């Protein structure tokens, strides 16, 4: 079983991100369970959502405490919460920021993860550019597919299309692809420089 935890703030589409990820996994024939951390819904308040993916029926109903993948939609959360709590030491970390890990004081935590398992993505900037509003969720799902094999980019794009029909969906799909390409290019560049 594979477990994903998504942190963000109310209004950033955190719950929708977990749901779209579960749809992407479903499209690949897997069992998936997406659920929010149940709180009072307020704009700006910290929100957590979860997604489990497995090859068989998922019976477990506890919140995800030891995620294999952690997606952080708002880097300011690191100041108020222990966002990294429970992250699998072999897991993956994806943070929405247009700075690098050192600038947001995460270089220590990143160094403890395997090489290439932590990535940044300027998802809010990409969302403004492609969608016209600062909703970073679809960009981050796209970026996730560039450095993990949780789900394929094509499945994420189909999940976005099902969630947001029409032009909104198209813009979000373009955003996800751009984020994927950005992270992929960065990884390719690193691999080349190491070769």
């Amino acid at each position, binding site marked *: 079983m594979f477990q994903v935890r998504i942190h963000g703030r109310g209004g950033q589409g955190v719950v929708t991100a977990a749901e779209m990820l*579960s749809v992407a996994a479903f499209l690949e024939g897997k*069992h998936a369970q997406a*659920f929010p951390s149940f709180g009072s819904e307020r704009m700006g308040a910290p929100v957590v959502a979860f997604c489990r993916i497995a090859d068989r029926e*998922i*019976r477990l*109903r*506890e919140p995800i405490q030891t995620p294999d993948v952690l997606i952080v939609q708002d880097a300011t959360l690191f100041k108020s919460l222990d966002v990294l709590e429970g992250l699998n030491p072999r897991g993956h970390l994806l943070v929405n920021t247009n700075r690098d890990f050192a600038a947001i*004081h995460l270089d220590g935590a990143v160094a403890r993860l395997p090489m290439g398992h932590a990535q940044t993505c300027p998802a809010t900037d990409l969302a403004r550019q492609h969608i016209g509003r600062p909703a970073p969720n679809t960009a981050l799902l796209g970026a996730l597919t560039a450095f993990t094999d949780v789900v394929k980019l094509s499945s994420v794009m189909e999940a976005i299309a099902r969630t947001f029909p029409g032009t909104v969906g198209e813009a979000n799909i373009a955003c996800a692809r751009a984020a994927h390409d950005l992270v992929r290019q960065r990884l390719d560049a690193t691999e080349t420089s190491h070769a």
Partner: protein
Amino acid sequence: MLEQIEGSKAMARTIALCRPQVICAYPITPQTHIVEGVGELVRDGTLANCEFINVESEFAALSVAIGASAAGARAYTATASQGLLFMAEAVYNAAGLGLPIVMTLGNRAIGAPINIWNDHSDAMALRESGWIQLFAETNQEAADLHIIAFRLAEELSVPTMVCVDGFILTHAMERIDIPDQKIVDAYLPPYEPVQVLDVEHPMSIGAMVGPDAFTEVRYLQYYKQQTSFRLIETLSQQFAKLFGRVAGGLLRSYHTEDAEFVVVAMGSINGTIKDVIDEMRAEDIAIGLVSLVTFRPFPIRALQEALAHARDVLVIDKALDPGMGGPLASNVAIAFRNMDDAPNLHSAICGLGGRPVTKASLSRLFRQAMVQPWEGPHFLDLNDRVIAREIHRRGKARRAGPAAENILKILERERAEKARARAEAGGA
């Protein structure tokens, strides 16, 4: 068709397939997306021949359902938590009048203190109202139970509550099979009321009944429920045959054949318990589970049979009767009354007001119950330190203030200290 869909939406779609003719709802917190979902299906014509009535309160929602049902319509509504309590008088009336209304209860806690999260307090508060109460283990079953509920309610002419864990199921998005209309129609025939208000054949429903007949009318309510066990099992078997999966029935046993230690629980927590049992079985621990689907009528005979070989029974309650303990534990104890070699009964209260119930905590609980059983109810993951501080503080002054606010203050202070320590460690 298999879909990746939110529990509430899957229920809404399935309820629509049951062809309700009147749906009344008061769409305010506490509610789920269910009535919103069926509302959309009525508006876009997917659910034809159905009147969707927005009412002014939960009391009105069920009152309108009572009127609609008495007039011969298949009536549905949904509520949760305080909403159920606000309609309490109508809940008893629907049962007393024998009107087969189906209602979803998105189980949530009841205040005070104010809390919007999941537990079974609402269902337990009205367990003696005369409704049939069915508890869903999964979202698939939550959807399926509605199809069974309409059939059961209408065959018995007793209202039926489908209890679904709020948030844990209602807000989870999962793989759910939404059945074909044809199969639902084959299982659930059109509503044929046993009593109906009809201007062609005038009569009244809801007479004033004095001491000379009240007991007899009430006894018939009891008789109807006590003779419904076989029907509940038959409807579940017929469902399995037609839909190709298990839903409903009185209870389900999991690895109980050779189990000396058996857990009894209701609702979605059974999924997590099964995972714990699998892990303990891998260690050769003889542990099993009875997942209770039908809470009212309470299946005493079926429970006795399911627990016949158990030496210890641990009952998990997601509700608390402050003057007694766990309501489900109290009910299971009645099943053991006058029984030779009755198993030892242990009670645990967990998941109150949305507290997550983890595999780790359950595993610890089961192991402790085996080697070191306790007296009275055990409160899972109780923060003893906070309790001790608050009890100590209350002992010192009469005007000790509200417990809820005081405990929140203690927790807030602890969180702030932790955050400060983390910041200092991060800066070092």
